[in-house]
């Protein structure tokens, strides 16, 4: 009896070993690593971009590693010679940083079929813009009966303990703080008024989320009812039936483009190129523009229609006119200090 049990265990263990063994190798060729953003983007990319990439490459292995741009830059610059990421996704601020730190492989424009189809704004040689993002206010229509109309509404006493924000590590958090500063006489160069205003916001705060994806989930969990929010971050939740709406504040919603870049020294450069080609191609961007993703396209062949045309903009010119574009060069110079200060001062 005992012997049998022992033999069973030994057999199980050695079978396990055989099964597991092929994985242990120092120089194993790794799958393509695409650092997307948490939340809706991860889901959208998983559902649309990855299948398109797999079709193009005959099922090349790929993994998504969602994280904030600042974390992507940290990881890549910590291991420049053997970067752990192949394709980065960057909002304007981090895109400037990544280029300045020489972390980006120039995009092989001459080989690219889709690059010339992009709107001129998106044709960055360091890596094309794959989509636009829009930041305004998000709220739970079940509990917030009158839709908010201004950033200032977050400070209203009735939202005591119901407001969510993110840290300044995200573009959303930093962009929001810059708008708050502007409301109180500050600017991209002068953030002080925003920090003063945050002191007054503290009684209203229910949570400070680590990233926009995490912020959106707080609506799903009923933890917050109103927050500065990303148009895209809530779309998939909304489609699933979570009560959450987006509204542009009267001061103007913030818009910015998001670049997709090949990491310098990536061991998977060719696959990275293929992924980006798919990301900026007409079919993928068309699909991503439709519900439930509603991601603003940068490929000129994709005509903005449906919900995007209705809520955001009819085309890129319309987008340019209607939205606030912030000065990320100025912001970038001081952003690390702001992040540090925010993490110190905004504690509940």
């Amino acid at each position, binding site marked *: 009896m005992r012997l049998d049990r022992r033999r069973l265990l030994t057999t199980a263990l050695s079978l396990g070993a055989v099964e597991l063994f092929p994985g242990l190798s120092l120089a194993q060729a790794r799958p393509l690593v695409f650092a997307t953003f948490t939340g809706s983007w991860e889901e959208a990319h998983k559902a649309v971009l990855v299948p398109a990439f797999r079709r193009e490459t005959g099922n090349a292995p790929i993994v998504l590693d969602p994280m904030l741009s*600042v*974390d992507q830059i*940290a*990881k890549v*610059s*910590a291991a420049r010679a053997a970067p752990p990421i192949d394709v980065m996704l960057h909002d304007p601020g981090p895109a400037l940083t990544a280029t300045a730190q020489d972390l980006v492989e120039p995009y092989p424009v001459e080989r690219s079929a889709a690059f010339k189809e992009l709107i001129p704004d998106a044709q960055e040689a360091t890596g094309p813009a794959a989509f636009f993002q829009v930041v305004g206010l998000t709220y739970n229509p079940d509990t917030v009966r009158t839709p908010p109309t201004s950033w200032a509404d977050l400070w209203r006493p009735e939202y005591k*303990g119901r407001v969510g924000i*993110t*840290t300044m*590590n995200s573009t959303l958090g930093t962009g929001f703080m810059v708008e708050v500063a502007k409301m109180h006489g500050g600017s991209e160069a002068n953030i002080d008024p925003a920090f003063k205003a945050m002191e007054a916001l503290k009684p209203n*705060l*229910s*949570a*400070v*989320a*680590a990233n926009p994806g*995490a912020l959106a989930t707080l609506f799903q*969990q*009923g*933890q917050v009812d109103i927050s500065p929010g990303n148009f895209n971050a809530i779309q998939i939740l909304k489609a699933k039936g979570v009560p959450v709406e987006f509204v542009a504040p009267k001061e103007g919603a913030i818009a910015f483009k998001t670049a997709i870049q090949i990491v310098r020294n990536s061991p998977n450069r060719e696959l990275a190129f293929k992924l980006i080609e798919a990301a900026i191609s007409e079919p993928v961007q068309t699909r991503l523009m439709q519900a439930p993703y509603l991601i603003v396209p940068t490929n000129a062949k994709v005509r903005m229609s449906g919900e995007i045309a209705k809520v955001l903009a009819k085309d890129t010119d319309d987008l340019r006119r209607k939205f606030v574009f912030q000065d990320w060069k100025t912001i970038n110079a001081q952003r*690390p200090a702001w*992040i*540090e200060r925010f*993490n*110190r001062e*905004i*504690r*509940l």
Partner: protein
Amino acid sequence: MARAQPDVTAYDLRLASPLALFFAAFFAAPLAALLALSLRGADGRYGLSQYAAFLGDRFSLGVLGGTLWLGLKVTAVCLGLGYPLALVATRAGSLVRGLVILAVLTPLLTSVVIRTFAWIVILGRQGVVNGVLSSLGLTDGPVRLLYAEGGLVAALAQVQMPLMVLPLMTALARIDPSLWDASEALGAGRWRTFLRVTLPLSLPGLIAGSVLTFAAAISGFITQSLIGGGQMLFMPGYIYQQAIALQNWPFAAAMSVIFLVAVLAVILAFNALGRLARGYAQT
């Protein structure tokens, strides 16, 4: 072989050398590298500037103090609930004891992430606790438990409780039950017997459990970040943030060293307290 009675039950100490070498290469050396890096100043010169920056900064000291304080609170809760459980389990029949052990082992061996995420369900604004409170009419609106320190202490206590209960059960099981009978026969009541016999004799288990609980609670990064949220900062999150998000490696290294030293100091204090208490109990 025929020299003065070789002890056949003891093996050559050299058998430990593979592991000792492994520890030297992958445990001691990394910690040494950490120490070396922590001595590198922002200007590239070597010195104690990173330590000065940390120790001279009230915010950083506050995070360190807050982390140690959190660990003490969690340890206290674990002790307050874990000791009675261990006592009951040790004195009960084998069936109850087996069940308690299973109840303790299951959380110990299920992932910290799973146990933590249960607490999101329990503590949220629409969570179990708030549901009970509002249906009893005790509150006129949801109470903030998630992303607040009280909730974090409860969650960490649950996550780390097994580490307290198991050593306590070991220590309590070693106490000869006839001592209890003797104490009672001498007229000492339950409380007196507990304070003068059980508690002092279980001190080794109590200290071991406290040390393990404390060490686990202060470095419970996942629970701290999921239940504490983005606005509560403790040493592990602070170190992670400095190292990964801000790439301030020398500072992160200095913080880790300070954290290590502070933890060791608290653990030594636990041990000293235990020895002191034992000495006191024996008089």
